[in-house]
Every structure is written in C-alpha cells, then in structure tokens.
C-alpha cells in the first residue's frame, strides 16, 4: 500500500536518469534502461490495483490518469527493450558513438519522468512545466544523429513546439485568472482537484478564451492539422525508439492535457461546448493526413502521417463526447499506442537491414525477412483498421456512435478512414510483397516487443476482458 504512490513511479526514472548519465558502458546502460523501465511499469501496475492515494497540491492519481500512466509505462518498457537491440546495430554501423548513447539513455529516462509527471500532476502549472521538459528532451533526441536533416527537424520541432507551449501557458494563466476570484489567491487556484469542484462558479467568458489557447497550444503537441508541421520531420529523422515513444506516448500526454481542460469546461454551464472545436480539428487532421499518406516516400514519415490521422480520430471521438464515443476514443488511443509503437519497432529494424528509409528501395520483405515482413503486414493491417484487430473495433465504435448523432460527420469520417486504408495497403503491397529489393543481410533483432504489441492488439480485437470494458466505461462517463 505504501508503495502505491505516484512518487515511486516518478522516482525510478529520475534516479535511473542520474545513474545512466554516469554509466559509460553502453551495454550496461541499455540494460539499466530496460530494467528501470520495467520497475516503473511494476510501480504503475501497483497504482492500478491499489486504492488511489489522496491528492496533494502537486500530484494526484485518479481513474482517468491511471489508465494513461499504465499505458505510458508499458510502451516505455517495450520501447526500451527494442531500443537495446536497435542501438547495438547503430553502434556497429557507426551512426552513433558510445558518448552519444550515454546521453541518449539518460534522456530516455528523463522523458519518461516528464511524461509521467505531466500525467500525474494535480497542478496545471506543474503539468505545463512537465510537458515543456518532455518537449525539450525529445527535441534533443530528435537531433541526436547530428545530420543536416536531423538538426533541421529538431529546429522546426523546437520552434513550433515552443510556440505551442507558449500559447498553452497563456491559457493556463487565464484559467488561474478565472479561478482566482472564486477560490482565492495562491496554489489552490491551480490545483486540478479544487478547480474541477468549483468550476461552475468561474467566469465562463474567460474560460472560453482560455480553452481556445489551451486547445491550440497543446493541440500543436498532439499534432493536429494545421499545427502538425513538426511531427513528420521529428518522427522521420530521430532514432526509431524515439519515434515509437513520440507517436505512442507523447501525443497521448498532450491529448490528456486537452481532455483535462475539456472536463473543466464541461463542469461550467455557461461556457460554449468545446466539442465542436475538437470535432473540427479532428476531422481536418484525419482527412488531411489521409490524403497526404498517398504522397509519402519515406517509410517513417508515412507512419508519422498515419499518427496524425489517428490522433485526429481520437480527438474527434472525444469531441463528440457521448459515453460511447468517449469509450471508443479511449480504446482507440490504447490500440493506436500499442500498434503504432509496434510498427515503429518493425520499421526500425527494416530501415537498418535495408540501410534506407526510402520506400522505393525496400521490397519483398516477407520473402527476405519473414518475421519483420509479416509483422509489418500485421501491423499495417491493424493500423488501417481491418477486422479482426483491435483498431477495427474502436473505429467501428467511433463510426457507429457518430452515425447515431451526426450522420453527415460520419460520412466524412468514413471517407477519411477509407482513403487512409487505401494509401496504407497500396504502400504495404510494395514493401512486403513482390520483388525483393534492398539489403538481404539477416537481421539481428529482438522480435519480442514487436510481437507482444501485435499480439495484444490482436487479442483485443477478438476479446476484451469484461473488467477492462467496465473500467473504460467508467472513465468514459467521467469525461462527460
């Protein structure tokens, strides 16, 4: 019981980061990284089963964020296992040097720390600081390879991310200004648990403006079109484990921040409904990304656009806001995290054996590297939303709940989904089947993280355990 505090989930990655900063041996570093991530996962699971500890001024655990934390730690752990085999190859080919790896491992744990802090923060100012730290660490990791493209991607991410973060801070200040006359000066007026309880008395006009800033600011970090420009570059040029963490986790963290403020808006009767704003941004992202998928030449960039598409679907679902749509949004978020990071694990090894990320130079993977090739096939089939995998189910729920309430929006939604499906299957055909192209060398890869993710997604598509469904339904009703 004493172990189940948010402090433990935060302390493990933080102390691991300090330790890793002093470990010069990269093999030990990779091992420590994975072990620390595993311990964090255990601590997160203990949070999941134990009763929630009481919230204080800075940290809190409730039914909503515990889902995000557990997912975060799970994908963080599998990515660290994948990262170990990925970086071993990068060292062999000399794209990274041991000195960079020490930095990389320490940064990995700081990133985990910052994301968990953002998720468990009870203070909207602290949440902002944590998301800023997470942005900075990922900027540095995106620029890790020091190539021209990597530095340019990091620079773009830096500038756009900073502007987003700046707008989000302005929104945060406005929320404080709205809360201060009701709650009084000081730290109470930034505490989430206090804010949500007394939001009904806040000035609605001020909350409206605050939400616009928060949605645009954190929406930049979610990667919603038209604020997405940093996302494909950052995914394509950084190390692949970081692409997996960015897509699978960091986007969720930013979305979580948006959801928190949406709940605040819902608690005040006088505000405009935040739903239509989110629905619009979500649909624009979905359709835009689906069209852009057709023009991609770089394999990592393609899956980055697919992330924009899926974040669009999730934002759309939460924007619709019925209990069923919220449920579908949560499920879709979980499935997308697992599938997309699984795909990036496969893509990382594929780019390594082929020595390129250009899709025109990769082909016939199922023949040359059956494990990688078929994993990619399964992953893409899953992410495209074909039955019987998990994403099909969540997309089906999003579509059917939309048809019940706004048939016209559902038509646009389905059109976007089908467009994306076509693009992904078209590309998959060239990558996985046909004439083998590119490097044929056998792969030294750990298939376990990739297969574990795909197995989970596959299982979820066939059967969702009733306790999980009940839990998600409960959380969906909280989201309002």
């Amino acid at each position, binding site marked *: 019981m004493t172990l189940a505090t948010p402090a433990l989930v935060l302390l493990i990655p933080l102390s691991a980061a300090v330790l890793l900063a002093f470990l010069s041996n990269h093999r030990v570093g990779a091992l420590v990284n994975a072990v620390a991530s595993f311990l964090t996962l255990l601590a997160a699971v203990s949070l999941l089963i134990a009763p929630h500890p009481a919230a204080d001024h800075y940290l809190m655990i409730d039914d909503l964020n515990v889902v995000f934390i557990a997912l975060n730690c799970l994908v963080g752990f599998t990515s660290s296992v994948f990262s170990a085999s990925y970086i071993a190859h990068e060292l062999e080919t*000399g794209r990274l040097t041991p000195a960079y790896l020490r930095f990389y491992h320490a940064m990995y744990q700081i990133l985990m720390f910052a994301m968990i802090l953002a998720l468990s923060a009870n203070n909207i100012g602290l949440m902002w600081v944590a998301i800023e730290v997470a942005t900075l660490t990922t900027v540095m990791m995106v620029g890790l390879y020091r190539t021209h493209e990597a530095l340019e991607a990091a620079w773009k991410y830096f500038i756009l991310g900073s502007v987003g973060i700046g707008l989000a*801070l302005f929104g945060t200040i406005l929320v404080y200004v709205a809360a201060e006359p009701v709650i009084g000066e000081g730290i109470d007026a930034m505490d989430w648990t206090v804010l949500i309880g007394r939001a009904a008395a806040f000035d609605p006009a001020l909350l409206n403006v605050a939400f616009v800033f928060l949605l645009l600011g954190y929406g930049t970090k979610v990667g919603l079109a038209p604020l997405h420009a940093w996302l494909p570059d950052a995914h394509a040029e950084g190390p692949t484990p970081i692409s997996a963490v960015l897509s699978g986790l960091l986007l969720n963290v930013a979305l979580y921040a948006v959801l928190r403020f949406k709940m605040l808006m819902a608690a005040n009767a006088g505000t405009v409904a935040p739903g239509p704003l989110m629905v619009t941004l979500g649909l624009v992202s979905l359709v835009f990304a689906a069209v852009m998928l057709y023009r991609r030449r770089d394999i990592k960039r393609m899956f980055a656009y697919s992330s924009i598409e899926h974040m669009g679907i999730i934002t759309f679902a939460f924007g619709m806001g019925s209990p069923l749509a919220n449920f579908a949004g949560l499920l879709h978020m979980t499935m997308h995290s697992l599938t997309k990071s699984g795909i990036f694990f496969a893509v990382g090894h594929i780019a390594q054996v082929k020595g390129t990320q250009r899709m025109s130079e990769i082909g016939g993977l199922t023949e040359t590297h059956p494990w990688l090739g078929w994993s990619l096939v399964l992953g893409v089939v899953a992410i495209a939303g074909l039955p019987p995998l998990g994403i099909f189910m969540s997309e089906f729920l999003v579509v059917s709940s939309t048809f019940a309430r706004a048939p016209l929006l559902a038509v646009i939604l389905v059109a976007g989904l089908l467009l994306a499906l076509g693009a992904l299957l078209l590309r998959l055909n060239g990558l996985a089947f046909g004439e083998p192209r590119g490097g044929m060398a056998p792969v030294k890869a750990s298939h376990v993280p990739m297969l574990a993710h795909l197995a989970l997604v596959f299982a979820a598509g066939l059967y969702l355990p009733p306790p999980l469904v009940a839990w998600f339904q409960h959380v969906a009703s909280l989201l309002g």
Partner: protein
Amino acid sequence: MTSLDFDISHLLAGSLVLVSFMLLYQDRLYALLNLYALHALTLALAVAWQARIQHAPHLYVTAAIALGFKAIVIPGALRRIVARLGIHREIETAVGIGLTMLAGMALVALSMVVMLRVTSGAAGAVAREDLALALAVVLLGLLMMVTRRNAVSQVVGFMSLENGLVLAATGAKGMPLVVEISVAFSVLIALIVVGIFLFRIRERFDTVDIAALDQFRGERR
C-alpha cells in the same frame, strides 16, 4: 491601490507593446538585439513594479532573471554568435514592413477587444490591462516569427512572445509558480541559443562533429 500605482503599471506594460512594435520594423540584426535587450529591461521594470504593488517579494526574483539573463546575457551571447558567423547583414522579411505594421495594429486591437470584454467581470483593473497588453505582446511576437526568415530574428520573436507571457503571469494576482515558469523559460531560451549555434555552425562548416559525419555520409544516402 492608488491611481498612480495603476498608471505606472499601465505605462510599463504599454511600453512593452511599443518596444514590440519597434522590433517589428528593425532591419539590422545588431539593432534588433539591442532592442530586445530594451524589451527585457522594460519587462524587468514592469515585473518589479508588480512585485511592489502586489507586495509579492518572489516576483523580484522574476524581475532579476529578466534583467540579468534576458537583458544582458542572452543578447550578449547572440551578438557574439552573429559576429562570429558573420551574418549581420540585412534581415530578409517575408512580408513588407508596412503590411507587417498594419497587421500588428490589427492584432493589438484584437487583443484589446477580446481580453477587455472577456475579463470585464472577473479580474481586477491591473490584471485586465496587463492581460490585454500581454496578449498583444504575444501576438506581435508570433507575427514577428512568421514574417522573418532568419533564424536569429525568429528567436528574438519567440523571446519577445515569452516576455509577454511572463507579463501575463505576473499580472495575475498571487499566481504561484511564476518564478519556476520564468526559470523554465530561461532554460528553454538558453537551449535555443545553443541550438542556433550548432545549427548555424553546421550550415557554415558543414558539420558539428567532423569525424563522425564524414565517415557515414555515403552510407546514409
């Protein structure tokens, strides 16, 4: 609060908007950096004044950070980078200066209309003025970022945007974490400056780490 207190804080926040406008039409990098130092100095004065009238000693820390770090250290470091890289030419702008100024005025009008109307019931007079003027500074910073192509002037735009945020945070009465937020932003800015340095050096001498790059370039593409 006396009306003099209010007038002075109004004057200082208004000056910040004025300096933001001056940043918009500079076409020399050194002049731009000097003006940025003035921007930060004005911010430091405005924050110190808020600390006085709100009786909030922790805001003096924020003012000191603005003065020492943003008005002296950062402009100095940027000037060095500019001198070393020899990029003190004219700044190319994507949009003409006349048009930029007009857009700037429209943005200031917009922030006044939005913030003054929205905060009419909720906040005190000082907070209202400060929020409206701070939003104007933020929007002018954004405008500067989109109308400049040069990385250094984009960064100056971002830093002036950030000064607007600090002004907003100090104007909100009794807001906690202002010092922490200003420290977090200072770290961000320091990293951006290091970032430009690496980025520019890379562009100029074609590499940051010569040994690591020359070896693997061929393999990459």
